[in-house]
C-alpha cells in the first residue's frame, strides 16, 4: 500500500486543483458569481453603430411601415451579419421587412433586400424571381444585375450570367463589370484573359475597401486553380493588405494554404476564427494533418454544430458538412450523398471538388458523371479538378 501513497497524493492534489477551475458543465446550472460573464454582445451601448441602430429601431417601433428606416436598418443588419459572419442578423433583417415580406410586389428597395436574404439562405430561384421583378421595374439597378450574375454563376448558368454582367456596362464603374466577367472567366475556358484583366484593374484603378478585396480574391482563386501559385499568393496578400476582415477571403486563403500543405500557416490564420463553421472546418483540417491535441475537441464541436443545423432544418452549410464527413469522419458514403444534395443547389468549383473526392473514394463513376460533364461542357480551368477527374476515369475503367 505504501507504494501507492505518492500516486494517491498526486491524484488527490490533482482533484483538488481541478476543483478550483470552473469549466463549462453539460447540465443546466446556477452560477455562483454575480460578476461571471455569460455572454458577449456585438456592441456596447456607446458604440456609434449601436446608437444608430437604436435610433432606427425606435422610429420603426412607432411606425413599422416607415420604409426608409426599415430599409436602412435591414441593410445595416445585413452588413453587420456579413462582417461578423453571423446569420442571426439575416433573420433580424427579415423581421424588419415583415410588413412587406409576403407581398408579391413590394417596393424596389425591399425587393433587393429580400433577394439578398434569400440568396444567403440558398433560396436561389426565389432570389432570382425577386431580382427579375425588380429589374423589370428598375432596369438600371446595378446592384441587382450584379447579384443576379452572382447567383446565375453559382447555378452554373454561365451564358445568362455573362449577359447579366454585360448589363453593368454603363451602370457602374468599369472595374465592377470587369470583376463580374472575370469571375466567370475561370470556369468558361478564359482564365488567362480574366487574370490579365484583373491584374490591370488592380494596378491601374484606385479601388479600395471591399471592392479591392473582391477583385483581388477573384484573381487569387483563378490563379490558384490554374496553378499560378505565386500570383495567387501575391493577390491574396493584396487582399489582406486592405485591412478589412472578410470571411470569404479567410476561407479562400485557408483552402489555398491547405492545398499546399502549409498547415501551420492555416493555424496562424484561423486559430481565433472558430465561430464560423467554415473557418473552424479549415482550422480543424490543418490540426488533423499536424495531429494537434485540439483536433478532437474541434471535430466534436463541428459535429455538434452540423447536428444542430440539421435539427432546425437549415441547409446552407451542406458543402462544409460534406467535407467534414469525408475527411474528419471518414464516412465517404454519407459524404457523397451530402455532396450530391449540395450539387443540386450550387455548382462552384469547391462543390465539384467535394463531390469528385467522395466519388473517387468510393470508385463511383456514375455519381461523378454530372461533374465530369460540367467540367467538359464549360471548359472549366481547375487543375485539381482535372486531376481528380482523370483519377476517377482511371480507377473505374
Amino acid at each position, binding site marked *: 500500500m505504501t507504494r501507492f501513497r505518492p500516486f494517491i497524493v*498526486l491524484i488527490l*492534489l*490533482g*482533484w483538488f*486543483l*481541478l*476543483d478550483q*477551475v470552473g*469549466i*463549462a*458543465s*453539460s*447540465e*443546466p*446550472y*446556477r*452560477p455562483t*458569481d*454575480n*460578476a*461571471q*460573464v*455569460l*455572454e*458577449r*454582445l456585438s*456592441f*456596447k*451601448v*456607446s458604440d456609434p453603430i449601436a446608437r444608430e441602430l437604436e435610433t432606427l429601431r425606435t422610429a420603426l417601433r412607432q411606425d413599422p411601415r416607415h420604409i426608409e428606416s426599415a430599409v436602412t436598418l435591414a441593410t445595416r443588419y445585413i452588413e453587420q451579419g456579413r462582417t*461578423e*459572419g*453571423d*446569420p*442571426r442578423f*439575416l*433573420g*433580424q433583417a*427579415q*423581421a424588419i421587412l*415583415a410588413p412587406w415580406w409576403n407581398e408579391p410586389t413590394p417596393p424596389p428597395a425591399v425587393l433587393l433586400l429580400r433577394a439578398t436574404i434569400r440568396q444567403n*439562405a440558398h433560396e436561389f430561384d426565389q432570389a432570382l424571381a425577386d431580382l427579375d421583378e425588380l429589374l423589370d421595374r428598375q432596369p438600371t439597378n446595378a446592384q441587382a444585375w450584379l447579384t443576379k450574375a452572382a447567383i446565375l454563376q453559382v447555378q452554373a448558368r454561365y451564358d445568362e450570367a455573362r449577359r447579366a454582367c454585360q448589363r453593368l456596362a454603363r451602370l457602374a464603374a468599369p472595374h465592377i463589370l470587369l470583376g463580374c466577367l472575370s469571375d466567370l472567366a475561370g470556369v468558361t475556358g478564359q482564365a488567362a484573359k480574366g487574370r490579365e484583366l484583373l491584374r490591370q484593374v488592380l494596378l491601374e484603378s484606385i479601388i479600395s475597401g471591399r471592392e479591392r478585396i473582391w477583385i483581388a480574391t477573384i484573381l487569387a482563386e483563378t490563379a490558384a486553380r490554374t496553378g499560378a501559385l505565386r500570383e495567387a499568393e501575391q493577390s491574396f496578400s493584396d487582399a489582406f493588405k486592405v485591412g478589412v476582415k472578410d470571411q470569404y477571403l479567410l476561407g479562400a486563403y485557408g483552402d489555398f494554404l491547405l492545398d499546399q500543405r502549409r498547415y501551420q500557416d492555416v493555424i496562424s490564420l484561423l486559430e*481565433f476564427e*472558430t*465561430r*464560423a*463553421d467554415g473557418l*473552424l472546418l479549415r482550422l480543424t483540417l490543418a490540426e488533423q494533418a499536424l495531429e494537434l491535441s485540439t483536433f*478532437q*475537441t*474541434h471535430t466534436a*464541436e463541428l459535429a*455538434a*454544430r452540423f447536428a*444542430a*443545423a440539421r*435539427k*432546425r*432544418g*437549415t441547409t446552407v452549410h451542406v458543402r462544409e458538412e460534406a467535407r467534414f464527413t469525408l475527411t474528419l469522419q471518414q464516412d465517404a458514403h454519407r459524404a457523397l450523398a451530402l455532396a450530391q444534395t449540395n450539387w443540386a443547389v450550387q455548382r462552384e468549383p469547391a462543390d465539384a471538388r467535394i463531390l469528385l473526392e467522395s466519388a473517387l473514394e468510393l470508385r463511383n463513376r456514375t455519381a461523378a458523371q454530372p461533374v465530369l460533364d460540367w467540367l467538359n461542357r464549360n471548359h472549366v480551368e481547375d487543375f485539381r479538378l482535372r486531376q481528380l477527374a482523370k483519377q476517377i476515369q482511371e480507377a473505374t475503367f
Partner: protein
Amino acid sequence: MRILLVILWLLPSLPASAHKPSDSYLSLAVQNDRIEGQWDIALRDLADAIGLDSDGDGQLTWGEVRNKHEEIRAYALSHLALSADQQTCSTQMLEQLIDHHTDGAYSVLRFRSNCNGPIERLVVDYRLLFDIDAQHKGLLRLTQGGQTSTAIFSRESPAQEFSLAKRSLWTESRQFIHEGIWHIWLGFDHVLFLLALLLPAVLVRVDGHWQAAGNFSSVCWNVVSIVTAFTVAHSLTLSLAVLDIVRLPSRLVESTIAASVVLAGLGNLYPMVASRRWMVAFGFGLIHGFGFAAVLIDLGLPQDSLLLSLVSFNIGVELGQLAIVAAFLPLAYLIRHSWSYPRLVLTGGSLAVIAIALVWFTERAFNLQLFPV
C-alpha cells in the same frame, strides 16, 4: 512538474461559441394532467428582445441576468400558450438556470403547467422572437411515458397540435421493460460494478492466491447471492426514490456510483474475505438504485400508473442483468483453470475498471467533461 502536466492534459480546451441562426429548445414532459417543462432561450436573443445589458458594457453577467428574471419570465410565458382539449393550462415558473449550447449561453426556464384534466390533445402556441427574428425556430421535444416526439415551431407554423394516444397498460408496461433492459445495458457503470464483483466468482482464494473453484454449484451459489443482493438493494432504493420518499442530490449519487466501481475493482486486487462480497453488492446496490431512479424520472412517469411503470422498469433491469450474467458466467467458468484468468482477466480487468471509474469519478465529482463519451 508531473502534476502540472497531468492537470494541463486533463483541462479541455473550449472553442469559442458558434455562429448559427436563432433557436430555442423547448422540452415538454406530459404527465397525465400536468406538463413539466424546460425552455432554453439564448441570452443574446433575450438581450435583443427585452434588453439585459443594464450597464451597457457589451457583456452579460449572471448578476444582470438574475436582475431580469421576472421580465424574462413574463416575456417567455406571454409568448407560449399551452392548452389541452380547448382548456388553457396555467403555467408557473419554477426556476431559471444557465446552460451552454454551441452558440453561447442560454437561460434555462423550468416550469410546470396545470391543465385541469387528463391531456389527450395538446395545442402548443409558440410566438417567441418571431417579431424580432423571422428565422427563429423553436425546437420542441415532447415526451409522454417512454415515448418522445419532436416538432419545429417557426413563424410560418407557430401553433401545432399533438394527439397523445390513449395508452394501453400492456404497451406502456412493455415500453418500460424495454427501457429497463436498455438502461442497464447502457449503464456501463452498473455493468462494470456487477462484472467487477463477478470476476472472482469462479475462483477461490487459497493460501493467498487464486485457484479455480471446484464445482459449478458453489460458483452458482456465489453468483446468485451477489446478483440477488444487488437486485434487492437497487430495487429498494429505486422505488424509494421514484415514489419521492427519499431524495439524494444527483452529483453525490453519480460520484458514489463511480467510487463503488473503483472499490469493487480494488476489492479484487486486495481481496478481503470472499464470502462477504454479497454485502458489498447489497451496500452499493442501494446507491445504484438511486442512479436508476434518476433515469426513470427523466423518462417522465405517468402518475396514474406509476406503480406499473416502476415494476415494469425494474423487471426490465433484472432481465438485462440476467442476460449479462448468463453471457459472462459460462465463459468465465470454462476458462477459470487457465493461467491467464487470474492474471489477465481478473487483475488486468480490475485495473482497467479502476482506471475508467476514476475518470468517471473525477468528471462527476467536479462536474467536468473530460472525454466526449
